[in-house]
């Protein structure tokens, strides 16, 4: 079992004809993901290795039954691509694109509120349910099918921690890279809720970083609503205040958003927090039956 992506996934790729779009579409298809169409305005009629290219997402939904979209279009057009997918009735939109203006994302975020479309990202590595479907750029070969759900703000920390788990023989139900932008789609709470309800997931790993209060709010949610064991990791213990560490969201401002405060909030909620990715994998191993 898995969350968000799985057997049911029928993928349309927006921006399929770009270099990265093509490369990762074919990797996802090789992995076994059902890629049903691509969309690049003005290129309808072409195909990418047999995958038909269409002009609009609505067309892809009508003619191929696409229910999931992956977005590789450039930053300045990406917000519109998300809206297009939502209006076409796509259930899940995974936006890989980085560098989208935050005002655009605020508009998208407000528009999606109360609608059925779920957004993952932007500026994220995507979602993989190992052995079943891969929507995004997470290297499939480092994952293994299993019972641990993982959600992370950082992309490369998904890789690092999944790798450490797989090397210990611990497989994953689904790995979600939610992205490091200040305004994004699915967050820790939404992911935890899905993993809690997923019979195929026995333990959840959540990987946070400095900045914002997503981890603190997730901690409050865990105390109230999550019965499954949760193992946590926070990056940025040694990050100095006021310096932005790459991700638009990763900055310690004043006394808020520090790794220490986040780790303590999670520990108070009963989450075991590892101090290194390796220790996270060890804690998971110890906690699994």
């Amino acid at each position, binding site marked *: 079992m898995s969350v968000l992506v799985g057997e049911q996934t029928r993928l349309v790729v927006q921006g399929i004809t770009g270099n*990265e779009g093509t490369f990762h579409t074919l990797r996802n298809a090789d992995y076994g993901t059902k890629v049903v169409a691509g969309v690049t305005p003005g290129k309808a009629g072409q195909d990418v290795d047999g995958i038909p290219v269409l002009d609009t997402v609505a067309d892809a939904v009508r003619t191929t039954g696409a229910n999931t979209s992956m977005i590789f279009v450039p*930053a*300045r057009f990406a917000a519109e691509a998300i809206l297009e997918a939502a209006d076409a009735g796509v259930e899940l939109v995974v936006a890989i694109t*980085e*560098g*989208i*203006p*935050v*005002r*655009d*994302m*605020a*508009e998208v*975020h*407000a*528009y999606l509120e109360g609608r059925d479309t779920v957004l993952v990202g932007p500026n994220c*590595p995507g979602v993989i349910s190992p052995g079943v479907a891969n929507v995004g750029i*997470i*290297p499939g070969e*480092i994952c293994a099918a299993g019972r641990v759900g993982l959600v*992370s*703000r*950082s*992309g*490369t*920390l998904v*890789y*690092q921690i999944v*790798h450490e788990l797989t090397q210990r023989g611990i497989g994953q139900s689904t790995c979600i890279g939610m992205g*490091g932008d*200040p*305004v994004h789609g699915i967050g820790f709470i939404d992911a935890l809720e899905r993993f809690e309800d997923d019979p195929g997931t026995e333990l959840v790993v959540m*990987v946070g*970083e*400095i900045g*914002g209060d*997503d981890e603190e*709010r997730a901690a409050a949610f865990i105390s109230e609503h999550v019965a499954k064991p949760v193992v946590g*990791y926070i*990056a*940025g*213990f*040694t*990050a*100095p205040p006021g*310096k*932005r*560490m*790459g*991700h*638009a*969201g*990763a900055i310690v401002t*004043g006394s*808020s958003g520090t*790794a220490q405060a986040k780790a303590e909030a999670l520990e108070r909620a009963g989450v075991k927090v590892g*101090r*290194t*990715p*390796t220790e996270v994998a060890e804690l998971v191993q110890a906690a699994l039956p």
Partner: protein
Amino acid sequence: MDLYEHQGKELFARYEIPAPRGIVATSADEAAQATRELGGRSVVKVQVAIGGRGKGGGVVVVDSPERAAAEADRMLGAGFKDMPVTRVLVEQALPIAREFYTSFLLDRSTGRYLGMMTAEGGVDIEELARTRPDAIRRVHVDPNLGLRTYHVRELVSVLPPDAREGAGDVLRKAFRLLTELDATLVEINPLVQLEDGSVVALDAKVTIDDNALFRHPDLESLRSAFPIDPVEARAREKGLQYVKLDGEVGIIGNGAGLVMSTLDVVAQAGARAANFLDVGGGASADQMATSLEVVLSDPAVRSVLINIFGGITRGDLVAEGILGALDRVEVRVPIVVRLDGTNAEEGRRILAEANHPRIVTADTMLDGAKRAAELATGAAV
């Protein structure tokens, strides 16, 4: 991009937000001249993109051009809280009756704009939010609906009645600035009411979203006003995220989270990171080479740890980049390399074949951090 006060006020002027008359000075003489033009009395304000200027001696009222020159000289010479200072803002000194605080920002926890107003000026807003949250009025604004009249009424209702109209006018203009110029913060602290009853922005703190600069080519040029380290400038040109820190282990990695984590793991291994450097996704051999040059240009660096987990980034290109850099720069310290992910095996093979005396390979991130820490602290003896 955090703007200087005087840059923020230039934007305020575009939006007709009332502010004191001011002149930028880059020398003591210019500050004296500016004070003369402003009538012999002025406020000299250090221009740095950080807060706490009032308490730190960065804002001083002077009553003569000579005093203005002396204060400007002190500020330009000494810097402010370790920040270099290249300019001061000399402003008209106004008769202030009351001080308030207002701001609009993009609230990441709701994805909406948040407007705040309090009748207490010159405060540390985070401190006030903790101790007396009731003193702050807040409204959340739907980005698709914009600022409405009732939002403005709610915010200004915390102010004395005769200040509400003037403050409301500032709020509407500040919100337009926020949305039209892709700002993520417009903060006025203090917003003041003068003795004649009018409301004026005494300070301006504006942050512009870097991702949106393509829509505002005129704002991109504001960046050139910041004194920037030549090494950081070089890194930025190549699309690398580089932040100088105080330690001795140079760090290069891909992805902000992994790099932050690498900093932490090196610290646990008993050393300190000399920098944060994220080569980003899909790093090319050239970017790797530049990264090494940038990191090695810091004389405090005693070892380097390259920690790459390739998704988009390819291990073979990383290895080629490292070897390319060894041809371009003199390498005086050991370089520990840990490669995993896409084409990592190929990358490891390339490094093994090169058999370079300075390169040490590590199998895991933890081992790499330990080796780099040992090499850095050992070399320091």
